[in-house]
């Protein structure tokens, strides 16, 4: 039976119709073989648009549908669903992208219209050869892997666990808590960061539905939505989990001091350590790289003092395999390496600090017990806070780091509260968009903090005049005054840029995610699905997706959790129907396909001498189809003839 094709051309308001002559496309389509119906509509994706589609399928007995509108990556699911509603197999639908690939990228209306006709012709050519396919359902493993134990991961894990679903949380450092645990106060409410975070950390540790693995890394991810298999390496801790009472004696007795990562290197920790006093879990780990015993074979002082005998020198890394249905990546953010920011004096002048260093300096559990002092112990009489250091700067990070304006204000407030120093903020724009943020800015103005509109150009210790002697001098133009200022201060705090984690590239690869040009993980849709990724079943939470403050991070974590949960609670997921199939009559058993399949989805039957595709493992990439020398594998929905038909119709060749 000849196919009966319907073509629907969308105006997308003026998005398409403003450039492409939609009626001309409709007329052209009407003239092609097998096209029995051809029309246009303002917004095909709208409710009336879908009704139009539905009616036409029934009234004109359409057996194929082509919608010429936006990218299939946007609305293919919408129209497939609409086709299904009208009783048409959704795989008999084909989309022609005349918006992203045509009207939005061309200005010449005639050229764009001709191109749109070509695009629709190719889609019709493919549609003519489409075959119905049945989507298959597979059960979901009701368990979620949360990677990263910062506040985003904590929120996601608790939400999921509270709903009754099992969670595995993997954190690479000794304790969960992330950057938020390093902070003293949070803007703009100034509530104590530890006070609001620690209870949540404890809940994670105690929750019956959460299995917490700290000091661990995800090594490998296999499988697909609903059915991932992950390998997790639990690094050797050398402290037995069940015997250790977290009494902390070993921490006192260990003679080996190393810079504390948690304190940004401003204080020391021991070779046996927990990240910070409120660490969760509280059991310490031995850092093998620093431990004297592991280096020289002597010491074992911790073992001597350990009453419950919890030290295990022969502890080994353990690799466990877990099956999960969904993965939430909450690996957080890093900070730009301030050593690359030479003109602002970091690394050259001891009293130039990064924002996170100042957080520790100001923290009651930090190196000075919360006193704000210069390196020589004196209280600063003046402090400069430099905004946008490395942010909004083509030489470093082009984006706005989003949290600096507000934490700079918080710093200014804390300095005012604890010292008598004059505080200068050097800024380009004040970005105080959140709830209560502008009010906080206003409060700081009332507190007498000085704001200079102009980005600090450099920091020097070279004095011109007595008032500069022995000081750090910040040079900047006040762009409001129209004058270059030199401001001598005792301490400089760099609101240095937030950056993707150093290993973001490897993590992206591990979980099959993309990265946007800024290096952060790429969301599926910037507006509508900022918590999903291109890989089904892998979700994003927190600042690994883009710089975020705490409220946004928590909201993002909760969003990722609910998305993962809604998938888990369906119990089944639809897996790719467009898979490959070996045609037995033509397979000669050369095994070439087995080598090229990235998923090892092709098995070989020695008895029949035939290859076979395991459809539930096949992801439909089609590599085997293109490779098979005997043309004995077909790729459903992208078979040779369908693709050739598209190529043949790509242009009006004559």
């Amino acid at each position, binding site marked *: 039976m000849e196919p009966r094709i319907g073509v629907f051309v969308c105006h997308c308001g003026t998005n398409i119709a403003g450039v492409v002559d939609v009626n001309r496309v409709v007329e052209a389509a009407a003239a092609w073989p097998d096209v029995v119906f051809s029309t246009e509509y303002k917004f095909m994706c709208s409710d009336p648009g879908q009704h139009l589609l539905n009616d036409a399928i029934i009234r004109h007995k359409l057996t194929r549908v082509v919608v010429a509108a936006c990218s299939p990556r946007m609305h293919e699911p919408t129209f497939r669903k609409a086709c299904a509603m009208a009783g048409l197999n959704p795989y008999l639908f084909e989309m022609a992208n005349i918006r992203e690939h045509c009207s939005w990228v061309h200005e010449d209306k005639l050229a764009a219209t001709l191109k749109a006709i070509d695009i629709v012709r190719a889609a019709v050519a493919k549609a003519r050869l489409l075959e119905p396919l049945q989507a298959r359902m597979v059960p979901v493993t009701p368990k979620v892997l949360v990677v990263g134990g910062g506040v985003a991961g904590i929120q996601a894990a608790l939400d999921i666990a509270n709903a009754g679903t099992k969670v595995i949380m993997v954190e690479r450092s000794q304790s969960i808590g992330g950057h938020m645990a390093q902070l003293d106060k949070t803007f703009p409410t100034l509530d104590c960061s530890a006070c609001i975070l620690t209870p949540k950390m404890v809940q994670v540790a105690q929750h019956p539905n959460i299995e917490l693995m700290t000091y661990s890394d995800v090594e490998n991810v296999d499988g697909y939505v609903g059915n991932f298999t992950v390998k997790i390496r639990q690094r050797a801790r050398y402290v037995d989990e069940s015997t250790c009472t977290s009494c902390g004696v070993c921490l006192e007795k260990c003679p080996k001091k190393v810079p504390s990562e948690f304190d940004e290197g401003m204080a020391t920790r021991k070779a046996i350590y927990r990240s910070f006093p409120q660490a969760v879990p509280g059991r310490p780990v031995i850092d093998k790289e620093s431990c004297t015993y592991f280096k020289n074979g002597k010491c074992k002082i911790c073992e001597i003092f350990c009453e419950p005998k919890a030290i295990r020198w022969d502890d080994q890394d353990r690799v466990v395999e877990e099956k999960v249905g969904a993965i939430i990546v909450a690996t957080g953010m890093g900070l730009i390496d301030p050593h690359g920011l030479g003109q602002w004096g970091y690394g050259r002048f001891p009293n130039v600090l990064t924002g996170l260093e100042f957080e520790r300096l100001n923290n009651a559990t930090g190196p000075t017990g919360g006193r704000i002092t210069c390196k020589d112990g004196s209280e600063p009489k003046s402090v400069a806070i430099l905004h946008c250091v490395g942010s909004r700067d083509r030489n470093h990070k082009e984006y706005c780091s989003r949290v600096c304006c507000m934490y700079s204000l918080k710093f200014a407030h804390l300095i005012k509260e604890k010292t008598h120093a004059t505080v200068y903020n050097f800024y380009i724009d004040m970005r105080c968009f959140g709830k209560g943020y502008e009010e906080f800015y206003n409060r700081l103005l009332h507190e007498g903090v000085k704001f200079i509109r102009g980005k600090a150009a450099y920091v020097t210790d070279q004095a011109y005049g007595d008032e500069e002697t022995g000081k750090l001098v910040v040079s900047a133009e006040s762009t409001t005054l129209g004058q270059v200022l030199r401001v001598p201060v005792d301490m400089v705090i760099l609101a240095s840029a937030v950056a993707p984690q150093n290993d973001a590239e490897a993590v992206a690869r591990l979980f099959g995610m993309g990265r946007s040009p800024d290096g952060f993980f790429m969301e599926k849709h910037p507006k509508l699905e900022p918590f999903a990724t291109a890989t089904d079943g892998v979700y994003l939470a927190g600042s690994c997706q883009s710089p975020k403050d705490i409220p946004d991070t928590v909201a993002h974590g909760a969003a990722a959790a609910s998305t993962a949960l809604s998938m888990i609670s369906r119990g089944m997921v639809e897996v790719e129907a467009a898979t490959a199939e070996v045609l037995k*009559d*033509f397979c*000669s*058993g*050369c095994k070439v396909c087995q080598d090229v399949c990235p998923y090892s989805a092709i098995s070989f039957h020695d008895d029949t*001498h035939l290859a076979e595709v395991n459809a539930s493992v096949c992801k439909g990439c089609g590599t085997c189809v293109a*490779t098979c*020398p005997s*043309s004995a594998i077909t790729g459903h929905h992208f078979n040779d003839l369908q693709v050739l038909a598209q190529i043949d119709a790509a242009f009006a060749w004559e």
Partner: protein
Amino acid sequence: MGEEKKNGKKLQLAMYWAASCGGCDMAVLDVNEKILDIAAVADIRLWPIAMDYKYKDVESWADGEIDVCLFNGAVRNSEQLHLARLLRRKCKVMVAFGSCASFGGIPGLANLHCKKTIFEAVYGYTASTVNPEGTTPQTHTKVPEGDLHIPDFFDDVYSLNQVIPVEYYVPGCPPTPDTVMVAVNAIATGNLPPVGSTIAGDKAVCDECLRTKSDKPKIQAFHRPQEIFVDAEKCLLEQGLTCMGSATRGGCGSLCPAVNMPCRGCYGPMPRSLDAGADALAAMTSIVDASDEQAARTKGDQLVDPLGTFYRFTLPVSMLRRAQREH
């Protein structure tokens, strides 16, 4: 035909050779004593390699008088084209016999060039040519005795089905005796497959090849057969030889691989093939052991003549059919 045979009338058989080496005619003789079976059932009405016939004889036949014509060789000049058309008229069933008639075959590689450049080479600068006047063949020459005509040499080489309709294909360079007998029996008994069929296997040569294959075959480097000591057990492709077996119709019994020679592809493209050369290229290069572009290039460069290798017998029936003319 079955009917005719029952009526005691012998099968009327014609055999013709066009642009070919004569190997296909030899292949008919290679059936040895079975040739007598053929003679028993058939009157051989035309067979230029064996017996003397004149074109006039052919022209004098009634249309459709001959039952079957086994036509070997590609078509590359006006005489061959004329005979192909003439025989088509006279014969009920036309069989493209051998790789040249079926796909263009080895002569088809001349499609890498054109008449002008071929003449320049053959009558110009090859080592054995002495032709100071630069004489090239002319279709018409006047001599005192009258006008001389020789056939016009075409720019292109054609497979038989590109010039006349063909009912069946018997591939091979040459077709093996078994293939020949399968074809002859089918014809003699009238037990014929659907028109358009190729009388050979539907599976690739690999299916008949007894060599052992790895589960995930990989090619470390491409070699030419003379460059390596061939392992007699292992798959030739895995040893880096450009064996066309996986992309070539079987039916030959995997004769070449059995004697350590990689399949050259003479039985032609697989039934569902889009393009024989592309099939072989895709398969062989996809499994080279190369994980970066440099390595891929190094290994790709080891393929000395991809076009000649992958289209050795099939260039005229491939997608692009010929190389762009130099002029």
